């Protein structure tokens, strides 16, 4: 931090405003990685270059505006060119740009070097949530917005991390090189954590690479940075950086959970149990489009309450949830949700909001469908 004086000036500027009130933040924060600090330095360097040029040019203009007014009895000079000056103000800015491009190039090269990572995580953007898969670890999960709808609709007080909180954060160990493989299942999203200076577009059909090595444990928050439809503003990113032993412990727990989930599939479920679980699944996964009371947002997002699908043959209902509907926002949830959750949500939809079908899908049936697909 002591390398460059402008870092101190930037921090000073930042701290003055941030002390007054957190809400009046005027600058970028230096961040929690070597790269993000380097980016912050670049940002401040180019900022101060602009400030100096601005003071000179605007200073000259304001000088003219004060001293060269007709009302001060000023007679206009008649010069209209000066080759030496014109060459000078072409070359000097060029040299400044070259000086600026050198550190920028060096930082960019570092940012692009994602080799020798210790952990690989596949980050997949979905409308409107993130999916994290720890490659080679058999651990994967979705990360959904955790802010309650009442807060968004102003029916209850907003929390400190309003819209920047999730049910399950991405967990990373401190001081390890983590590589992100960023992609998307539907439209383009962008995975951005400001404290890491990592922003990569998640593009369907592409796998983009990015990496980070976080210096200190903590919670880091970001948001989707590419317009991805209706709930683009409601798919935050939270990264929890833990010490290495804590991370290993967490990873072990997640693996045990995954094994447990597999057992759940073979369990005998009652309809009431499925409806109860489906209620939760529906309100994290389906509610954004089909809405809390199943009323949907027609015509883009059809209603489920009394709909042909949700009250028709159960096989068609399961099929559309499992495979999605190509050409629309309805995703193939067979790839996103566990067998239990799919069975639960279908059963819930058939037995909620007056859709009193009274029937159910069991997790085993979903598993059979999945196995039939993969053959």
């Amino acid at each position, binding site marked *: 931090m002591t390398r460059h004086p402008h870092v101190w000036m930037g921090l000073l500027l930042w701290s003055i405003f941030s002390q007054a009130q957190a809400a009046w933040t*005027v600058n970028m924060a230096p961040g929690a990685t070597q790269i993000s600090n380097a980016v912050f330095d670049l940002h401040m360097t180019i900022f101060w270059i*602009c400030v100096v040029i601005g003071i000179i040019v605007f200073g000259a203009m304001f000088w003219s505006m004060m001293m060269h*007014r007709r009302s001060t009895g*000023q007679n206009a000079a008649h010069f209209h060119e000066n080759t030496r000056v014109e060459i000078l103000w072409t070359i000097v800015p060029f040299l400044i740009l070259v000086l600026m491009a050198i550190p920028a190039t060096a930082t960019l090269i570092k940012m692009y070097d994602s080799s020798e990572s210790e952990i690989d995580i596949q980050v997949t953007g979905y409308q409107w949530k993130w999916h994290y898969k720890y490659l080679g670890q058999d651990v994967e999960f979705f990360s959904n917005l955790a802010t309650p709808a009442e807060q*968004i609709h102003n029916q209850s007080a907003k929390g400190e991390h309003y819209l920047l909180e999730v049910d399950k954060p991405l967990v990373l160990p401190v001081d390890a090189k983590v590589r992100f493989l960023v992609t998307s299942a539907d439209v383009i999203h962008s995975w951005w954590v400001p404290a890491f200076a990592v*922003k990569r577009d998640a*593009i369907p*059909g592409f796998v983009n690479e990015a990496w980070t090595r976080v210096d200190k444990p903590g919670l880091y928050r970001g948001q989707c940075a590419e317009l991805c439809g209706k709930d683009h*503003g409601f798919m935050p990113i939270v990264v929890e950086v833990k010490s290495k032993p804590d991370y290993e412990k967490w990873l072990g727990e997640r693996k045990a959970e995954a094994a447990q989930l597999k057992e759940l599939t073979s369990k005998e479920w009652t309809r009431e149990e499925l409806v109860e679980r489906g209620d939760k699944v529906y309100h994290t996964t389906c509610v954004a489009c089909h809405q809390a009371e199943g009323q949907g947002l027609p015509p883009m997002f059809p209603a489920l309450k009394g709909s042909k699908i949700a009250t028709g043959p159960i096989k068609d209902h399961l099929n559309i949830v499992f495979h999605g509907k190509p050409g629309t*926002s309805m995703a193939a949830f067979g790839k996103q949700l566990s067998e239990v959750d799919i069975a639960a949500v279908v059963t819930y939809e058939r037995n909620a909001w007056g859709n009193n079908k009274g029937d159910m899908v069991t997790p085993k049936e979903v598993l059979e469908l999945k196995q039939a697909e993969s053959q």
Partner: protein
Amino acid sequence: MSAVIDDHGHADHAHGPAKGLMRWVLTTNHKDIGTLYLWFAFSMFLLGGSFAMVIRAELFQPGLQIVQPEFFNQMTTMHGLVMVFGAVMPAFVGLANWMVPLMIGAPDMALPRMNNFSFWLLPAAFLMLVSTLFTPGGGPNFGWTFYAPLSTTYAPESVTFFIFAIHLMGISSIMGAINVVATILNLRAPGMTLMKMPLFVWTWLITAFLLIAVMPVLAGCVTMMLMDIHFGTSFFSAAGGGDPVLFQHVFWFFGHPEVYIMILPAFGAVSSIIPAFSRKPLFGYTSMVYATAAIAFLSFIVWAHHMFVVGIPLVGELFFMYATLLIAVPTGVKVFNWASTMWQGSLTFETPMLFAVAFVILFSIGGFSGLMLAIAPADFQYQDTYFVVAHFHYVLVPGAIFGIFASAYYWLPKWTGHMYDETLGKLHFWLSFIGMNLAFFPMHFVGLAGMPRRIPDYNLQFADFNMVSSIGAFMFGTTQIFFLFIVIKTIRGGPPAPAKPWDGAEGLEWSVPSPAPYHTFTTPPEVK
């Protein structure tokens, strides 16, 4: 050439405009068509502005109060489309129609009937575009940059109307541009060599070439979308072997020159206005021409700086960073030239000069943030945040829009034959200046603090500056209705304007009476 047009003119309406509504429908007169363009642009400016008011009202406080996210997205999309294609571009075409023939001593535009057609396409295009807001499923909601596949597979049904509207606007722009090129290259008065042309004519000539080069690219882009949506192709769909990133390359190959299309004519106008009120010739005319040409050339090779985070390879990233940084050199030359024109002048600050000086300073601030955005590693933090929103509003509002206001006040006496009310003009300037800075400066802060763009709701840490922004936006928006009042007042009366109301002004347009007669330069003037 001019003799032919004279004959035609005499046969039709030698003694002035036709009466009634049909004058405007059938007109081939460059002044009438210029007026139509300017009124159309202003009405679109108010419409696009009202969309912005909806956006700012929703963002006034955290939480969802006024609109739902799906409608919010339609508002951001329509605001951008209407302002870019409906307000700024037609306003400049209107200025070109009015002023290019007057500045080069031509009797009219070279292709008057095509001129009429290119105007009347626009109301049709925008009627169609805006009507989609009332269709089930709503209007376009994928941002004015309409990235696939959000704008194809996942788009509302109205996207087809959007595509057709873009096609119409593109045809209109291309015809308008061809007309400008034909006029400037063929109808200059004897003695008006290229290097004697006013800079507004120069910048428009270069803008017209940019338009002819890139509007077909946009047309190709939306046509591929149309094919993907309706004919089962997969240009932009990864599932069918297509490439969503291709969309962005094609779009920004149009989109970056488009940025200069929206600013170069303003450069030209300001290059007339600053010397007029400095009572001193423009500093560095030749370097201004070369700088404009250099900017236009560079605008074709920097498009991927809009795509620094899509994952282009390191070498590509470096190329586009260096090329983008280079743009600062010719742009800097222009700003230094304007500042030097003012230096040791004899300055007065009538409304056009106020807008022109604010243009230079605030556009430069937009240029500075542009320089910051060009630094690729730093752009990883800026991309798609409010910092970008602040940046492009600084180049478009005090850039393009203030350039148009400066031009309007500068030439209003020539158009209407009356002087506008100077006190009201200055009031309009100061209210716009304060409102605009209040609206857009805090956006730099929330952007750097991490607020993404195009979101209807935000964390509490961004609340205070967003409220300031909204207040500034309401102030700026309301002020523009006041501008309408000033213009109408000037049309209806006011002190009669002499042929040359500004003592420091130069150019052929001041050699004809005010208001400019319906037909001017039927005999070409001599330029020494």
